[in-house]
């Protein structure tokens, strides 16, 4: 079973996402859409391969890959248009995601709108923070943090007792690992990762929410919150600008191809950079310890 989760839920979508990122990378006019196209590719592959993920969503959690794809499409269309248009995309996506992802169960009748309103707040904040952070930090560090956060989310879903959710997390992890693979294998530092952040945020936050709501494990809510916290650290630290921003990188890739003059490789990525992952590590470690303990007690 675990083999299928890894192969169907991760390796195949990763291969598709990687091919799409590299494909878009080669065409200059598509380069800025690379990250979004990869996430769409991974999500669509998941819907096609996983029989329990219908093309037309029925249950609240089945909307996750669809929302991620719609979010990416919207951000690709919005492109580099005015900031308020991109902000509108974030808000619309947060509204639609909150409406569709909060289940209309009988026991939630009284609090459903509370969850939806809170969901809109959380998604907007998370999207803006991650967009802000990834657009102003080294793309390789950002992609690494995004990929590890998505993988951690998938493992957390496995710990919380759902292989389906773990596989959905695997789709997001596959796309983000494809971003990281391309950014780390070339000299480039960014390809508009920020563009995919509204969809990524809906994927991660939405999955954690659905996982928590459906879980009967003993994992406490801080585990879920901590796992998602790593990308927020990027936004909080960008005031100390020591690495090239996405605009520097975009400019450089337009003028010199893939290389940025005068920027030594791996600048800003090291033990300090990995500190961003500390909350995620704590959240996931906590979840794993509780799961192992429950297994022994069982």
């Amino acid at each position, binding site marked *: *079973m675990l083999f*299928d989760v890894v192969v169907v839920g991760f390796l195949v979508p990763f291969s598709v996402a990687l091919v799409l990122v590299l494909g878009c990378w080669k065409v200059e006019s598509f380069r800025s859409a690379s990250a979004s196209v990869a996430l769409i590719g991974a999500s669509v592959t998941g819907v096609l391969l996983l*029989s*329990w993920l219908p093309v037309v969503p029925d*249950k609240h*959690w089945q909307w996750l890959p669809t929302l991620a794809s719609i979010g990416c499409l919207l951000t690709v269309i919005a492109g580099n248009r005015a900031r308020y248009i991109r902000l509108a995309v974030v808000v619309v996506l947060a509204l639609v995601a909150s409406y569709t992802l909060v*289940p209309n*169960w009988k*026991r*939630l009748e009284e*609090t459903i709108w*509370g*969850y939806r*309103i*809170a969901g809109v*707040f*959380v998604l*907007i*904040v998370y999207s*803006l*923070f991650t967009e802000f952070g990834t657009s102003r930090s080294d793309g390789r560090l950002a992609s690494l943090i995004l990929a590890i956060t998505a993988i951690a989310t998938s493992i957390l879903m496995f710990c*919380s*007792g*759902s*292989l*389906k*959710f773990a596989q959905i997390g695997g789709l997001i992890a596959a796309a983000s690992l494809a971003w990281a693979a391309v950014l780390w294998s070339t000299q480039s530092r960014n390809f508009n990762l920020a563009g995919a952040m509204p969809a990524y945020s809906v994927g991660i936050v939405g999955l954690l929410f659905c996982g928590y*709501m*459906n*879980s*009967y*494990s003993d994992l406490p809510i801080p585990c879920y919150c901590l796992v998602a916290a790593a990308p927020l650290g990027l936004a909080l630290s960008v*005031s100390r600008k020591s690495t090239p921003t996405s605009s520097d990188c975009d400019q450089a890739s337009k003028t010199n191809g893939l290389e940025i003059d005068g920027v030594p490789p791996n600048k800003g990525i090291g033990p300090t950079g990995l500190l961003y992952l500390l909350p995620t590590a704590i959240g996931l470690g906590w979840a794993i310890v509780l*799961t192992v303990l*429950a*297994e022994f*007690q*069982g």
Partner: protein
Amino acid sequence: MVVTKAVRERYTLFQTTHTLSSESLQLNVAKNKTKLKFWRRLSMRYLGLFALLAIVSFAGCGNDTEDASVSGTTVPDADAGGFAFSGENALIAFKGTKPDGSSHVGGFKDFKGTAQIDEETETVKSIAVSINVESIFSDSEKLTTHLKNVDFFAVSEFPLAEFKADDISAVEGEEGRFLVKGELSLLEKTDMVEFPATIAVADGSVTMESTFMLDRTKFGMNYGVEDNKIDPGVELTIAIGRTE
């Protein structure tokens, strides 16, 4: 010489104006930077406030987890001339198997049912049972958690399962053996289920025993079937009048 003087004058004029313009430019840049810093700080504060609001809102949603109970279901009361059974005097157990031959067993602790008795023939004429799916248990704590999740029973969404059988007919040539036909509502689907059972009625109390295979895929519980990891059939054991 005249040309050189004129060039010098022009150059001096250019230097003066250029110095002035670069000074004003620097001043503008400094002003803009201060403005940007202010707006950045302000926006970060608003975002912080926004995040705080979001956390408070989420906390305000509270814990909606409440125990699903079988009390509010359509199972008729035993007072209406039937025999009542529950987890205290009955058993609903299952055995799930894998193609490699391994298996897991489990059951439901909390359920409530009624068997209506035909006074004249002293036979059971109908059975209705409502199961609190959240009370599911198995031989592994981890499996129990997994069974409650969306992969199998999706307990949060479907906390109750119901079975109603109005067609209970005797099997010819087999005394005490009956064929029970009814509707099982599990997950979001309702499907006809029929199974043989040994039923006895004595002094107003009912004993019933049955073991049969149930195809879980009829109820949309497909997980592990397509990749041939878990068998679609589940062995169900229903026993009224015993708990072991």
